[in-house]
């Protein structure tokens, strides 16, 4: 283990986190990733509401949505639910 890691005497008991879990990138193991067609997207925000990971953000200043691939698990709910079929799931490696 890295020497930066704390010892058992330095950490809080029972696994209480001393750092926010948002620093822990959990989206790096997906098989499929969502991609978006700006032409078709009506910014209805259905995907933003349905994403179980909160990994789709609405950027009002740009009037568009954005995927946060650091947390997206590639479940495909957004693509399945999009009323205008603006989201497509693609293999991440492509």
């Amino acid at each position, binding site marked *: *283990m890295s020497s930066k890691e*704390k010892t*058992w005497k330095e950490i809080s*008991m*029972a*696994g*209480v986190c*001393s750092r*926010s*879990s948002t620093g822990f990138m959990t989206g790096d193991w997906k098989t499929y990733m969502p991609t978006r067609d700006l032409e078709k997207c009506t910014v209805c925000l259905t995907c933003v509401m349905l994403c179980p990971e909160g990994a789709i953000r609405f950027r009002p200043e740009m009037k568009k949505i954005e995927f946060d691939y650091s947390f997206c698990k590639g479940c495909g709910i957004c693509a399945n639910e999009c009323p205008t079929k603006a989201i497509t799931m693609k293999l991440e490696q492509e």
Partner: protein
Amino acid sequence: MQKQQKQETMALNGDEAVALAVKQCDVDVVAAYPITPQTIIVEKFSEYVANGEVQTEFVCTESEHSAITACLAAAATGARTFTASASAGLALMHEMLFVTSGSRAPVVMAIANRALSAPLNIHGDHSDSMAERDSGWIQIYVENAQEAYDSILQAFKIAEDTGVSLPIIIGLDGFTLSHTLENVDVLSDEMVKQFVGERQLPSVLTHEGKTVPYKLDPDNPMTMGPIALQNYYFEFKRQQEEAMQNALKVIEQVNSEYAQISGRNYGNGLVEAYKIDDAEIAVICVGSTSGTLKTIVDELRQEGVKAGLLRLRTFRPLPVEALKNALENLEVIVVMDKSMSFGGEGGAVFHEVRHALYDGKNHPKIINYIYGLGGRDHSPRELRKVFEEAMRIAKTGRIEKQISYLGLRE
């Protein structure tokens, strides 16, 4: 220190004594599922709830797995929590026992010790809680209903100590103690309240950089029960071991504080020695059998035999030093086990007592008796044979059988 006050003598069985103690400890949440021979504890306590005698939130769960999980969740909010079980019920809790201790939730659980199936058996032995000895719970075994009552009061104070913060099992022998009426001296509610006090919470550092009491609190959010992989899991387990070692001191302190208000103590809280100082032979046991064994020690003493008894009251954490000090100068030790460690060459208590003596100056001869499985009776006459075998070994210096079965048809 508080002076001893008058106590009321009540006729209670072990289970009722436990229920009364829990009532007096002002417990916030009791979640339980009934199982023989523990049932009376929960029945009696539900009467207190129905009569409005306690403010406790009583949760009837659909299984023991849910009961312990509800207790863990309640304890996470800072609540004082109690449950009770036995045998298959405790076995069903197995997974959550580790989550409870790993989450450092000071849940108090009474276990009316009972055999495990198969074959189905509802009677008393230590198979259930001995099988959970590595689950991270403190384990104290009592000799009688009085001690069951006293130990529950002590249990909250031990488990909730901020240097310990571990769950605790108080084991009382099924039927022998759980269903047998005894005179039990009971402290006043006020005395118990003063002794046990409010639940104390250890401090933790949260992701917001704040040091706050360890409980779920919307004003001070924290992450409980997260994932810890190769990087941190090991460190958290080492903390639990430290808490266990701290518990050794806390159990001793609580035992002596309790003696000051009640006039009752149980050895040093860890082990209870009976006529062992000048003894040449001694029997080590856990639980209610020590009552009978004390009578036999008295008989043998009258006959001029230097016999003694050591009751291992606290099994987890194992009081290695106390065992070593009490036993290393004896000639012959007999360890009594009321459970089997199949294929393990002797029972759990035997293994551990023998382990405690390995680094001692002297090594007494040591043998093991497995007895009382599934509630098999062990009469004074039968138990006397155990001392007689120790006397024979002391005289001849020869062990014929290291592991024997008392009261088994052979």
